C-alpha cells in the first residue's frame, strides 16, 4: 500500500497498463506536448512516443469515433476528455456506435474503449463545464459507466476498464483529483464493475451515493455519529452501469430508511433509479419514503455563492437524513 492522490492513481493505472500491453494507447486534446490540462498525462509522450500518446485536434466525435474503430480492430484506446462535458459532442459515436456495434454485429466484435475525464462542479466553471453525466450515459445499454470515489477504486476500476471488452465511460470527479488514499501496489490490483461496497457500517439509516458525494456523505455520517450517536450505513455504488443494488437492499433491510445523494439534477437522475428500485424491491421494509438529496434544477451559475447553493452540501444531506428519520419536526 502507498498513499496516492486520486489523480496519480489514474495516471499510475494508465502507465502500468501501457507497460503491460502494447496495444493500449491514449488519445486526447493536448495530452502530449501540452502534458494535459490536469497534467494526468504529463511525461507520457516522452515515455511512449506519439504513436501511443496521440494528440488529437479539437474533434471529440473524430477522436472517439476513431478510437471505436481502433478498438474493433484489436487496440485498447483510452480517450481523455478534457472534461466530460465535451463528450456530448461525440454522443453519437458513444451511444450509436461504441455501445451498439457488439449487438448489431451479433457479437462479432469487442469494443474495448475507455472514455475518461473529469466532471462535476465546484470551481466556478459555470454552465457548460460543470455537469455530471452518470444518468445520461447510464441510460444506454451496451456500455459500462463507472464513477469511483477513492484513489484505490480509481486505479482498480480504470484497470478493469482498460482490460475489458466493452466501452467504458469512466467518470472522474475533478474535485477529488487532489484527494489522497491508500492504493495497493500490486500491478494486477483491479476492482470489478457491478460491485457496490459498504463504505461505512451503521444501523440507523442507509445513505447511497458515489463519486464526490460519497465522500461528503461519509463526512456527514462521521459528524452525526459524533454529535448525535446516529449510525449511518454508507453504500458506495462505484458503478452506475452495471448497477449492483444487493448491498443497498441488504442495508435497507437493516435500517429501513434510505437517502440517495447525488450532485446532478433530481429529475431522471441516478437517484431516481435507486429510489425506485428500493421502492420496487424493499417496499415492506421501508419505514419512510426514500429521500433524494440532489443539485438544484438550474444550469450551473458562475457566482461562487450561487454555485454553492446549486449543489448539495452538508446541511442538505443532514436534512435528507432527518426527513427519513422523521426527526425534523
Amino acid at each position, binding site marked *: 500500500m502507498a498513499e496516492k492522490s486520486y489523480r496519480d492513481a489514474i495516471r499510475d493505472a494508465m502507465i502500468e497498463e501501457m507497460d503491460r500491453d502494447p496495444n493500449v494507447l491514449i488519445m486526447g486534446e493536448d495530452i502530449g506536448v501540452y502534458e494535459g490540462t490536469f497534467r494526468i498525462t504529463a511525461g507520457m509522450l516522452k515515455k511512449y512516443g506519439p504513436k501511443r500518446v496521440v494528440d488529437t485536434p479539437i474533434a471529440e466525435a473524430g477522436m472517439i469515433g476513431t478510437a471505436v474503430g*481502433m478498438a474493433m480492430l484489436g487496440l485498447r484506446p483510452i480517450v481523455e476528455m478534457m472534461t466530460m462535458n465535451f463528450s456530448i459532442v461525440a454522443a453519437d459515436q458513444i451511444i450509436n456506435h461504441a455501445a451498439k456495434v457488439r449487438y448489431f454485429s451479433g457479437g462479432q466484435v469487442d469494443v474495448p474503449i475507455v472514455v475518461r475525464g473529469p466532471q462535476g462542479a465546484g470551481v466556478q466553471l459555470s454552465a457548460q463545464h460543470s455537469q455530471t453525466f452518470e444518468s445520461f450515459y447510464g441510460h444506454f445499454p451496451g456500455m459500462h459507466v463507472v464513477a469511483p470515489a477513492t484513489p484505490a477504486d480509481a486505479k482498480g476500476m480504470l484497470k478493469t476498464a482498460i482490460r475489458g471488452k466493452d466501452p467504458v465511460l469512466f467518470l472522474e470527479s475533478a474535485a477529488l483529483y487532489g484527494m489522497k488514499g491508500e492504493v495497493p501496489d500490486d500491478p494486477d490490483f483491479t476492482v470489478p464493475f457491478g460491485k457496490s461496497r459498504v463504505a461505512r457500517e451503521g444501523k440507523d439509516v442507509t445513505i447511497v451515493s458515489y463519486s464526490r458525494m460519497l465522500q461528503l456523505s461519509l463526512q456527514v455520517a462521521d459528524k452525526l455519529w459524533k454529535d448525535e450517536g446516529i449510525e449511518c450505513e454508507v453504500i458506495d455504488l462505484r458503478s452506475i452501469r452495471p448497477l449492483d443494488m444487493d448491498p443497498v437492499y441488504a442495508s435497507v433491510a437493516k435500517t429501513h430508511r434510505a437517502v440517495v445523494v447525488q450532485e446532478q439534477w433530481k429529475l431522471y437522475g441516478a437517484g431516481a433509479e435507486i429510489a425506485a428500485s428500493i421502492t420496487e424491491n424493499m417496499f415492506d421494509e421501508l419505514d419512510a419514503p426514500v429521500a433524494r438529496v440532489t443539485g438544484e434544477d438550474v444550469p450551473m451559475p458562475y457566482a461562487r455563492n450561487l454555485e454553492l447553493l446549486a449543489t448539495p452540501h452538508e446541511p442538505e444531506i443532514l436534512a435528507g437524513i432527518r426527513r427519513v428519520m422523521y426527526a425534523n419536526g
Partner: protein
Amino acid sequence: MAKAKKESSSAVAEPPAEFTCAPEWTDLLKEMIFIRRFEEATEREFRKGKIGGYLHVYIGQEAIASGLISALKDDDVVFCGYRDHAQALALGSNPDKVMAELFGKGTGISKGKGGSMHLFDVEHGLYGGYGIVGGHLPLAAGAAYSMRYQGGDGIVLCYFGDGAMNIGSFHEAMNMAGLWGHQGMCPIVFIIENNGYAMGTSVERHSALTDLSARVRAYDIPTEKVDGQDIFAVRGVADRVFRQVRETGKPYCIEAVTYRFSGHGAADILQPYRPKEEVEKHRQRDPISILRTRLSEMCGLTDEDVKAMDEQATEAAAKAVKFAEESPQPDREELLKDVVAEHQPRWVAEDETH
C-alpha cells in the same frame, strides 16, 4: 516521399489501356448479375412483408462494389453505410445468411440483430453496415490506424455517399486521416459513391461546393474521380490506388460518379425529387450492360453465356430466399446476448421481483 497525385478535373477516367480477357472479368460480370438479382429479390420480399425496417438496394451501382472489392487482399477490411448488401456479397459473405439477416432470422450473419443496415461479417472483412449517415467514417479511419499500429500492411476501404459529406463526423474523420497520413499511419481509401442525391436532396441542393472531392482535398487527401458505371475504370483506379495506399500508409479518396436506379429505400416509390426521364437516361449506362458489351466485343462472350449466368444468379437468389424463409427466428434468449461481454442484462421482469 512520392508527391501524392492530386486531380481536380471532373474528367471521367478511361478503362485501363492494357486489357486482357482474363477469366476474372467474367467472374465479375457473374457477381454483378448475382448482386442485381439478389437485390431485386430483396425488393420483392420487402413488398411481401417478409423483410422489415428499411431496405436500401444497390441496383445501378454494382461496378463500385465489385470493382473495388475484387482488388482487395485478404487482410483488408471494409466499412460502409447502410447500402451494404453488395459489399457483403462481393466480399464473399454467404448469400443465404445475408438474406436470412434481412428476414430477421437466427441464421442471419448477425443472428438477425442487425438487419439490412448493419451487415457484419468480420471473417470476410466486413466491419459494418452503419445507419447514421457518415457516422462510420471515424471508425474506418481508426481501423486504418489500428492496422498500421499493429504492423500489418492491410488497408481499409470506406464507402459513403455524397449525402454523408455534410455531417461533422465526415470532416473530423477526414482531418484526422489527413494528419495521420502525414505519419504514414492511415492506410485508408475513402469511396464517395456520388449518386447525385442525399436521399431526395440533390448535390446542388445539399452541398455549397458541388465539387465534392475538393472538400476532401482540403484535408490534404488526394482524390480522383472515376466513372462508377464502368468497372474497367473502377478496377484500374483500385489496383493503382490500393498499391499506393498500402505502401505509403496515406489516405486516398476516390469519387465514383454513379446513379441508383431504384429509390433511396424500398419505400421511396414516388421519387418526386427526380424526373422519370432522368432515371431512364441513366439506365442507359447500366454497369452490367457496359461490362457485358465489352466482354462480348473483346472477349467473345456470347448471349448464351450471359443467359446461363443470369439463370444461375436467379436460382441462387431464390435459394437464398428459400433458406431465409425456412430458417427459424432467433431464440428468445438471443435478445439479452451480445449487449456487453460481461454483465449481461437480466429480463426486466426478473429485475423487479428481487
